[in-house]
């Protein structure tokens, strides 16, 4: 049998920094989207929940950007992704996910900053209440939330497309990494917000909706992962190893167990188990995807 052509390529050496970026980038985009969603359709008491989302999104995307710069072998040339170093003209290739992502990252960062500032203003940490206009229901805030939310989706999903637009085994052998990363970003972000908001004495009502949302999204993620395994065909044999075992752990502990736990609502400490599992599994999922191709 002829071996798949993707096996004749070399690994790029994307390791822990990249896996961590995939995770925090997903969290940033997902938390911003959820915050914007809550701003649009949540109850007034849920605005504290949306604020948490904005508080996470900005530091997460800043951290993500730093991880990417540090991972470059010539970090001082990071700006070559934005400006052509010889002509100073903008550098953008619409057909290269890394190139578009390099622009999407600062663009999203700008909107995350607007959301962050507006959340601070509403929380009373900034003495400029007018800045609340940067969040819905103010018309300006609505525009910010819609554009920022779309960019958030882009930031959380383009990394999967980036892996697909290579010639590496597993990554470029399936078109489903992008949607998997989008859905997984939503699930880890909802889990983080549930975890953060659940610590308060009287959690806002939106927490229950987020938990329900997470249940749906985790189920969707499971379906996507099964479809992804199916789309790999014969290459699935490369998951018959410790990475495959880790992936099985992700499915059982990070997807099936949280879904089962949700059927019996727990209170107190028990309620934190499911979101913690979802978060750990979301990180592990990216580690498995990155490393299982890297070592081939």
């Amino acid at each position, binding site marked *: 049998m002829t071996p798949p052509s993707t096996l004749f390529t070399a690994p790029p050496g994307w390791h822990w920094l990249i896996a961590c970026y995939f995770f925090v980038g997903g969290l940033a985009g997902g938390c911003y989207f959820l915050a914007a969603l809550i701003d649009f359709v949540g109850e007034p008491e849920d605005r504290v929940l949306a604020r948490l989302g904005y508080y996470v999104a900005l530091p997460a995307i800043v951290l993500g950007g730093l991880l990417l710069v540090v991972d470059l072998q010539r970090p001082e040339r990071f700006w070559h992704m934005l400006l052509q170093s010889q002509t100073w003209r903008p*550098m953008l290739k619409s057909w*290269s996910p890394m190139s578009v992502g390099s622009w999407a990252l600062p663009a999203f960062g700008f909107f995350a900053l607007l959301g962050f500032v507006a959340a601070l203003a509403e929380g009373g940490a900034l003495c400029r209440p007018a800045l609340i206009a940067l969040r819905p229901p103010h018309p300006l805030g609505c525009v910010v939330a819609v554009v920022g939310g779309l960019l958030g989706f882009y930031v959380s*999903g383009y990394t999967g*497309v980036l892996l697909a637009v290579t010639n590496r085994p597993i990554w470029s052998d399936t*078109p489903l990494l992008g949607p998997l990363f989008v859905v997984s970003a939503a699930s880890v972000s909802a889990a983080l917000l549930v975890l953060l908001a659940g610590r308060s004495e009287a959690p806002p009502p939106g927490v229950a909706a987020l938990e329900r949302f997470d249940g749906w999204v985790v189920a969707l993620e499971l379906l996507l992962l099964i479809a992804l395994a199916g789309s790999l065909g014969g290459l699935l044999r490369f998951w018959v190893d410790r990475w495959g075992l880790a992936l099985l752990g992700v499915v059982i502990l990070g997807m099936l167990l949280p879904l089962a736990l949700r059927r019996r609502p727990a209170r107190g400490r028990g309620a934190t188990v499911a979101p913690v599992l979802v978060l750990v599994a979301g990180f592990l999922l990216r580690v498995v995807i990155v490393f299982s191709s890297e070592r081939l």
Partner: protein
Amino acid sequence: MAEPMGFFTDTTVCIGCKACEVACKEWNQLPATNGGVNTLSGDSYDNTRRLDGLHWRHVRFVEQFSADRRQGRWLLMSDVCKHCAQAGCLEVCPTGAIIRTEFDTVVIQSDVCNGCRDCIAACPFGVIGMNPVSGTAQKCTLCYDRLQSGLEPACSKACPTDSIQFGPVRELRERAERRVGVLKERGEADAYLYGADEKMLGGLNSFFLLVDRPEVYGLPIDPRLPSRNLRWSTALSAAGALVVGLLGLFTFRERGGGARRP
């Protein structure tokens, strides 16, 4: 633009002397691996093993022996960047460091590259690697500097058997076709050209004459561009985002509706 230039590597006359590897390292001032400490592969007479950022030419030794080693043959192939007409590395490079030159070759500008390594993952042949000294991705430049001065690349200049031939791609293809004909006449029925026509990535500017299946030489049978996955992967991601958005609206509306009921 000057005429497209390239290499025709006839593996049937390669003797595995590695003069091309040495000439390449010498001309391009590529540093030694491992600080110059010799490391042996242990399972082959070839100790270079692969193309990477420090080895822009690599003579691959395919040692085909029966278990009792009574029967056997050596296949030798001096491997190099293919300078694809449709190059995956050039396609994804987010800094514009990878360019197509006036000779239709593909060159990484080391002063522009920032070491993101996307090109390494994109190359269908696993040609590119990091040079730890420059901190940039590197590969064969088809001796761009020598070409600009009217010289032929160092490897083909050094090759003692003319296994590596340099010239205008059009001429090389004609010569290669003739060589396949001669070999077939002499009884080498398996001789064929790899990458000489436009079916493979628009044509490889460095192509090969082989006498066994491509994978035996470590070459992919169906190399493709990374962008083949762009459309579907993007569309499915957008669909995923849409479903997530709708699920969000649905779960929050459900709650809102329930709360408003009398």
